[in-house]
């Protein structure tokens, strides 16, 4: 029995990415059925809850615009607080999506296939949440909305100030949102066609239009693969650039605790860290509630845990480096800023951050914990709490005590701050629920591709990922997005 592929010693290390008795049709069925069947009662309940929270967000934003920034707790000297914290937090969440879709795609990491769709969707929804803040945190959003657009405006007859990192932000985030949306949509086209072929009536019409005439011809696939590759290549630098530019908001300032060159890599690592944690949280719920354990396997989750462990350490190293530089630079303001961060009035925020971001990922050193659904679920949430605090610590604790002690202050959030933040979580979840309900949450075409490789390994290549159960039916080499 030594030759039984199911007993292959490497299976322990590298289990197949698609598990259980699978056929192409079964995959199509499993994914499409989610959006085709009757809407489950629990979806209505969940969407009802998150929708109400989203309405609260709109209420809070209306209240904000009607009265002014004063309804938040922002003050002098903490002119930015939860608003920009939330912005950076949500932008960071979005990063995992692009990373999984683009970078892992370019590195031919096949394990990304079952999670990339939802990760990309998550990116879009997170960016949508994030973009609320740069606009609404301004004192006069009705002016900011056209002033910040890259147009010379007719009001004052002049260009924006291109020296301002906030201006760079506008470009970075809008580019990121556009490219992410394109990338996501291009990836969706074959699957939309699958849904179209299975649908009737209005659904058919909508998917017909949305799938852009996709027929699954080899020529279509060839163009698709090329387009996808190019978009992946365009997206890849964005993973690095967006959070780099977001970090410039702080790094180019002169405030101790902000003015530091480590921010770009530190922010990118943090973004991937939080993004993976967020994908993890959502996928654990999705695979459980939508019965997708065979497609989103433990291996996927474990891989993500490994990324969390690595980026957690990168982030921890960044924290340590900041302290080292604060001491090594000999700049007393800098030194104070960091000691104050850890032991000043906001010590609790700092140590929450350290506990969540530096201590908690270390549980993933243990394989058993890495493979435990409850453990990783809790830790993924803990990491996101930690990353929210990281941004809060950077923004609020640096601002609240800067150069002149006479101007020092303390920030306390108001209910509007809190409800606005909770509201964005509501918006995020609502969008995600809508996505789960109406669109294929797993890239059907890509999973089929992996399945094909599992069954028909390229000649001379023997990897465990290609181990298949010989009982299963043979398939065509080219998977057809049109399905069976």
């Amino acid at each position: 029995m030594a030759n039984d592929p199911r007993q292959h010693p490497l299976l322990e290390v590298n289990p197949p990415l698609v598990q259980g008795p699978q056929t192409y049709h079964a995959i199509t069925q499993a994914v499409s059925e989610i959006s085709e069947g009757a809407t489950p009662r629990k979806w209505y309940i969940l969407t009802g809850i998150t929708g109400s929270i989203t309405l609260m967000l709109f209420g809070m934003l209306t209240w904000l615009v009607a009265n002014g920034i004063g309804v938040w707790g922002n003050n002098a000297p903490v002119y930015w607080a939860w608003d920009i914290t939330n912005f950076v937090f949500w932008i960071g969440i979005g990063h995992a999506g692009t990373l999984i879709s683009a970078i892992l795609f370019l590195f031919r990491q096949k394990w990304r296939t079952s999670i990339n769709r939802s990760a990309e969707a998550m990116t879009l929804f997170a960016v949508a949440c994030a973009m609320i803040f740069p606009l609404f945190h301004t004192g006069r959003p009705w002016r900011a909305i056209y002033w910040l657009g890259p147009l010379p405006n007719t009001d004052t007859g002049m260009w924006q100030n291109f020296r301002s990192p906030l201006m760079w932000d506008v470009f970075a985030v809008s580019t990121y949102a556009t490219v992410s949306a394109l990338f996501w949509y291009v990836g969706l086209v074959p699957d939309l066609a699958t849904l179209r072929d299975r649908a009737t009536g209005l659904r058919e019409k909508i998917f017909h239009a949305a799938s852009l005439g996709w027929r699954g011809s080899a020529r279509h696939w060839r163009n698709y693969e090329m387009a996808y590759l190019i978009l992946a290549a365009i997206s890849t630098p964005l993973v690095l650039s967006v959070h780099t530019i977001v970090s410039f908001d702080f790094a180019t300032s002169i405030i101790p605790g902000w003015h530091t060159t480590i921010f770009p890599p530190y922010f990118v690592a943090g973004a991937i860290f939080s993004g993976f944690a967020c994908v993890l949280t959502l996928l654990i719920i999705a695979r459980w509630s939508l019965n997708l354990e065979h497609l989103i396997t433990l291996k996927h989750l474990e891989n993500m845990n490994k990324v969390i462990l690595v980026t957690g350490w990168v982030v921890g190293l960044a924290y340590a480096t900041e302290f080292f530089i604060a001491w090594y630079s000999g700049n007393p303001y800098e030194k104070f800023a960091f000691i104050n961060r850890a032991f000043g009035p906001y010590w609790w925020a700092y140590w929450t951050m350290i506990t969540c971001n530096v201590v908690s990922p270390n549980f993933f050193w243990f394989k058993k914990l890495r493979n435990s659904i409850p453990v990783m679920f809790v830790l993924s949430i803990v990491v996101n709490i930690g990353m929210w605090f990281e941004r809060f610590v950077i923004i609020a604790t640096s601002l609240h005590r800067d150069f002149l002690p006479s101007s020092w202050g303390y920030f306390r959030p108001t209910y509007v701050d809190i409800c606005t933040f909770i509201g964005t979580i509501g918006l995020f979840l609502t969008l995600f629920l809508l996505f789960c309900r109406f669109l294929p949450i797993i890239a059907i075409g890509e999973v089929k591709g992996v399945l094909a490789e599992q069954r028909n390994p390229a000649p001379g290549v023997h990897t465990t990922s290609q181990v298949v159960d010989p009982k299963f039916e043979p398939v065509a080499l080219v998977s057809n997005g049109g399905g069976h």
Partner: protein
Amino acid sequence: MSKLIQINPTQTGPKYWRSLGELYNKPEFRDWVDSEFAGGAAETLDQGSRRNVLKLMAASFGLAGLTACRRPEEKILPHSKGLEGFIPGKPDRYASAYTLSGVASGILVETYDGRPTKIDGNDKHPTSFGASTALTQASILSMYDPDRSKEVLKGGVPSSWKAFTEGSKSVNPGEGLAILSEINNSPSLTAMKQFVMGKYPNARWVEYEPVNYGGAAAGSALAFGAGVDAHPQFDKAKVILSLDYDFLGIDSPTTLVTRQFAQGRRIDEHAETMNRLYIAEGQFSLTGAMADHRLRMKVSEVKSFAMQLGEALGVLPAGLNVLGNTDKKTKFLNALAKDLKANQGAALVVAGPRQPAVVHAIAHLINSSLGAPVVFTKSATGGEDPVAAIKALAADMSSGAVSTLVILGGNPVFTAPADTQFGAALAKVKTSIHLGLELDETAKAASWHVPQAHTLECWGDGSAIDGTVTIQQPMIEPLYGGKSAIELLAMLFGAPSAKGFEIVKNYWMSAFTGDKEAAWRTALHDGVVAGSASAELKPGADAGRVKAAAAAEPKASGSGFEVSFYPSATCYDGRYANNGWMQECPDPMTKIIWGNAALVSPKTARDKGFKDDDMVKINANGGSITIPVMVQPGMADNAVWLNLGYGRRSIGRVGEGVGVNVYPIRTTGGFWFAEGATVEKTGETFSIATTQEYHRMEEPTLPIPTNFKRPIVREATLEEYKKNPKFAEEMVEHPPLNSIYGDWKYDKGFQWGMAIDLNACTGCNACIIACQSENNIPIVGKKEVMRGREMHWIRMDRYYTGTEDDPQAVTQPVNCQQCENAPCENVCPVAATVHSPEGLNDMAYNRCVGTRYCANNCPYKVRRFNFFNWHKNITEVEKMVHNPDVSVRMRGVMEKCTYCTQRISQGKIQLKADARRAGKAVELKDGYITTACQDACPAEAIAFGNILDPESKVAKMKKQERNYAMLAELNVKPRTTYLAKLRNPNPELA
């Protein structure tokens, strides 16, 4: 008007009538018509031809414009800029007077088209020198207070002037008439008083104010005999001892003292030495912060200290009842006595208003033995002790001996000592008439209340501390039809003229000699009645009397818990309680806004277990109050300090219920301080709002100390300075400040800059209110200040150094530093803050979208954000105080100090116009363009001007070796620089 309207005798159509009187056209009806409709307007009643209607309409349109100008009827003369060719929209400045606690200051009032907007000091006035206090400047807002008294009240119910005129005829002027005035320093009011007293010799005249200088008057009476005022010449003194006298702060009602003191303190190319200030006090005052040596002691112990000093200097015999000495006190006393003696002729001892007569007398005795620079004059105000006077008056009111009481201003029901039971006594007076600005406690208790005209609304006069008289001109017709004190007296007691203008002018026409009209016009124009300063006296001190008084003094117990009272630097005695500017102006030392607190020393707080914000019950003088505690460094132990003026129950939307009223425990016996108080925690807490926490420039307590003393306010002793004059600049080492791009050369045209001399600044807050008034800065309220959203463009930072028990303190005004390399500018995405070629960091409000990034990146944190629309709920009348040259900022917009850019623009336009007319090149004379803060500063600590002009004051100050730029190491190149602070400690006490 009657000439304008032609009466048309022919009637057209049927005649309609409304009454029998009209039908028969009886003379009574004609009279009624004439009285009801002035002049020709009556004609339209029945002469309504088309032509007449059109004529009348044309006339009323023509006159409609005039009604908008609330110009006073009588002629008033401009001060410095002529009325010739009056230009609408351009301000005129008129000289007038502002009186507080019986002391007048000369002011200049800026008016736009008949609307006063700003008060400055009168530069021709001998005690103002162009400077002004925060309280003086804020009084303009009190005039536009929408909650001011607007109508006559009878028994608290709205009535009318007509009813009052009728009702006041029944006033029995014979027996039982008493008039309670504020401290009177006005010659015309004195003349009116003499008129009334001459007509009704049995009437009594009482003067009272809760903040008065009765102790000082009694002290000079003890030393020299009655009616002598002492004027210490601080500028001529080299060594000064203050006995509980906050002469740089709230104890001095004028700017003169600060000006003189700063002159003696200034170090520049002309002066290489400075005065030395010692102080013995309880509360940590601004004067204490300025002092080179400070000995803290309870207010009641100062007497003993003064006696000991008298003994040490040999002016008092040994063996007086004095308290024992600590080592520190002995050392302090010995060094002080030696220093005073060594500076014979230039040593000065001054005592504060809280101190009893004997302390003042001892100070006089010491001064005469030292040949101190003190000038004596005849007293400008009356002699009777206000506290004793009001006590006697209240007793007579209670016994029914007073049947008619006329209260001329003030709010005695609120401010009179508690044991006089003034409110209850007032209820026993048959007819009481209260003249007041506000619907205050007294207005509601009196049988009649009539609205008072504000200082800026009526004619009057007042004498300054040196006796110089200023005629008070109205700037605007009374907004609510109020009357001044002289007008009310004239009306009540049948003076020949009831018009304020006539009374004042007639008085002065009789007082002037020579060309009276010219003298009158000159007095109005200059704001000073020439030659009116009191003649100098050379009184001899009666040493025997003072010695006897000192020997008779009982020993201070020194052990009990003490409570003492201070006028609030913001609400004063309560009269500013409804003034938003003052409520939001932080107390100079504690930085409390919108309220008051019981101040205790850190040790007392530890002993008693008090923390900030704990509510405590204070029992003293037979009464009790509940008030929150604030722990303040540098206070004397076992004592508590209370600010007067808060806790008004009836005043208006701003001040009602703000703070705690401490008058209930202030009695005639314990008027300024009392021993034997008890203080205990109630267990409740109350949030006190401050604009600044208790901050030192050293790091706050963190588990890992960094031992970093921030070089913000740089300070050295005079000795250190002489050894190393460039100590301030050398205090910070930093790498060379290079930019990878070439720096912009600001070397053409005007380059505006500012220098602030920290050695002169006393932290008096005058600049804060000046800026608020000039730049339309809104107030935000207590809740918002607690969130750190106050809007002041210039703030007064206060830092402590040294130990918690015996700290030193420094103050530093901080406005926008107008960095040449401004960190706020590059971060603004919409270019709303950009640099002008003249080196100004400009704000374009219209571009601002409110990202607040600029404020985050400002190392000085001087930018202010409109978190809400702060102007939303202000009334039309409050809008009148706005400076029309400065835009009012909407919500969501950032703002900050502009170096008064509107004044710069105005000045430049004027300069260009003048130059063109003269056919010359534009030339800026230093001091032609000034900022509001600079104008106000009594210490002349702020200089502003063109830094490229080597002859300008600012360039000269910047050239001084003490000059340093705060946070220069950030390479932001601020245009505002500071001159380092110096102290002049006695080497023996080092």
